[in-house]
């Protein structure tokens, strides 16, 4: 789960981090009211979850009401990298002389959180990491101890943060680590942390991702998730509702399978045999008939899809349940929307084959054959 900037800022403010005054607004009038409350100049920032909002025109700095109206009118309702902007954050502009990067993430190779500080803030940190890795100081934290105060200082001093603000930046990092830890965050970062001309330290942006597997212990964040979902794509919203791991892609061969590795392999084979995957959809382990039916419903909802390959290797997932689900879903149609190729193997695959209504689907015995057949169908359908 990725928090919106306005949500993350709220979490930050509650933790005592220095964030600029701000207000959420959903209309031009609300923007003007918020701007007056906060005090000009303000930044008007589109609340959609994509990187590079600024470059894409989703952030504007305005000095007065006229400019605010103009900017609000332009940003509200705009399409930002495929997402609809329906809310903006109106935030007091910060008069800064310096921009830093401060963040905490999980280093999966070390199995430990890592805190990072760089004086090259305000720009894409991935580019900094690639071009001048030495410009980012990194401190690994032992999760059994948590971050020691000296580690925050070390990260800050090693990054070369100026001494007069170093302890304040270390304090921001300490709090960020605490939030990362308390909120089961996977990544938390502020880019930029601004140093003002008065040598104040301000968190001007706020990125906070939460471990979905840990959401069960954070009622407050669950609420935020529900409230923040407005700008999600329809199919993704549906996948969330059904509880699928789903990614929409640009091709026309729909793919359903069990287990991330096997589904990815199916995608790879579609590509290998000259097709183009329309999606990644993992129904997970031990799926019952209804879940299988939901998966078919999802894939058929994608208008790009010209054929579907259903690849199940049963472990805890049982072939008979899968077959039942396929029958259920397809029998509800007067006409099958798109051709479906099924390959069942593993637990209860034979039982599944006996149940499966082979009038409605094409059955293949091997994964390779099933994928080739689906690609073939997709080509034929696309030519129609």
């Amino acid at each position, binding site marked *: 789960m990725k928090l919106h900037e306005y949500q993350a800022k709220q979490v930050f403010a509650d933790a005592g981090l220095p964030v600029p005054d701000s207000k959420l607004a959903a209309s031009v009038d609300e923007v003007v009211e918020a701007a007056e409350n906060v005090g000009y100049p303000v930044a008007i920032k589109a609340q959609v979850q994509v990187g590079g909002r600024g470059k894409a025109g989703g952030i504007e700095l305005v000095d007065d009401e006229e400019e605010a109206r103009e900017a609000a009118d332009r940003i509200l309702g705009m399409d930002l990298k495929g997402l609809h902007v329906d809310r903006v954050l109106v935030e007091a502009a910060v008069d800064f002389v310096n921009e830093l990067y401060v963040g905490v993430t*999980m280093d*999966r*190779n070390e*199995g*430990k*959180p890592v805190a990072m500080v760089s004086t090259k803030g305000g720009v894409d940190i*991935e580019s900094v*990491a*690639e071009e001048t890795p030495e410009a980012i100081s990194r401190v690994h934290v*032992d*999760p*059994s101890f948590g971050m020691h105060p000296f580690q925050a200082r070390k990260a800050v001093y090693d990054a070369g943060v100026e001494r007069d603000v170093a302890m304040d930046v270390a304090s921001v990092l300490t709090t960020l680590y605490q939030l990362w*830890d308390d909120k*089961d965050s*996977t990544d938390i970062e502020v880019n930029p942390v601004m140093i003002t001309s008065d040598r104040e330290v301000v968190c001007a942006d706020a990125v906070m991702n939460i*471990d979905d*597997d*840990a959401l*069960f*212990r954070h009622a407050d964040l669950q609420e935020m998730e529900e409230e923040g979902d407005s700008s999600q794509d329809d199919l993704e919203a549906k996948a969330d509702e059904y509880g699928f*791991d789903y*990614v929409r*892609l640009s091709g026309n061969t729909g793919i359903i*399978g*069990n*287990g*991330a*590795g*096997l*589904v*990815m*392999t199916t*995608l*790879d*084979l*579609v*590509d*290998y045999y000259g097709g183009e*995957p329309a999606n*990644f959809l*993992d129904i997970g*382990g031990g799926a019952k008939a209804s879940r299988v039916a939901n998966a078919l419903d999802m894939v058929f909802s994608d208008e790009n899809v010209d054929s579907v390959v259903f690849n199940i*290797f*049963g*472990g*805890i997932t049982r072939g008979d349940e899968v077959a039942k689900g396929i029958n259920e879903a397809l029998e509800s149609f007067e006409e099958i929307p798109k051709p479906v190729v099924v390959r069942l*193997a*593993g*637990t209860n695959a034979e039982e599944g084959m006996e149940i499966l209504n082979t009038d409605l689907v094409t059955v293949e015995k*091997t*994964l*390779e054959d099933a994928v080739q057949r689906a690609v073939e169908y997709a080509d034929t359908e696309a030519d129609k």
Partner: protein
Amino acid sequence: MSILVDDDTRVVVQGITGGEGKFHTQQMVDYGTNVVAGAVPGKGGQDVDGIPVYDTVSQAVEEEEADASVVFVPPAFAADAMFEALDTDLDLVVAITEGVPQQDMARVYKRLSETDTHLVGPNCPGLITPGEAKLGILPGNIFSSGNVGLVSRSGTLTYQVVDSLTQRGIGQTTAVGIGGDPIIGTDFIGALDLFEQDPDTDAVVMCGEIGGEDEEEAAAFIGEQMDTPVAGFIAGRTAPPGKRMGHAGAIVSGSGTGTAESKISALQDAGVPVGDTPEEVADNVEDLL
């Protein structure tokens, strides 16, 4: 021979009274696994199909001389179950549970480094030494005893590859599903090292996927420290950068490492043939033997 588990392995099942725990214990027993105890707080003194249940893992270990545990405990309690297992002197802990919070696992991982125990998982199908024992949820019937080791980050992909092997008459010493989570116990190198030391393993199949740098590191290990030949497979060649696909691990960051290309070329540089399809992997194994 085999790695990690065999006929003599004495298993305690943590969470044996739960739905999954009960079902898969039965499956494990049916396969021939020596399940000697269960451990569930408050259920001590009961039994599950004749298997005695204890309140704590340490009691189960003491009373029944268990040397391995399998964890079927809901995600919220899984880390505690792993800590409990690691607090005894078990040789092996297999955590099946999916959805263990990442920060819980980071703490478990730290604890693991203080012990001599092998942890497999979490979020993994477990491991099997065909004909001897299985610890986990793998479908026993597709495996056959033989001389090829298998290590994989993905469950069902493992089955796919094993199926291809078995149908060609290539059996397995041990197959280990190490799990696809960002933080796991035994990683590729850990499993490869054990296979390298196993005299009965003549070749190893390694199934990786995009995300992280484990496969790259494993490639370096294979190149430098293994005599046993390895055949590789990498899932996720077509995954677009920045998209998360199922496994927490299966995310491509967009930078140099972690991509399928990076992993495949690292393996190839280490002399590992990487198949384009599961069938091609089986072909490569045939060539290596």
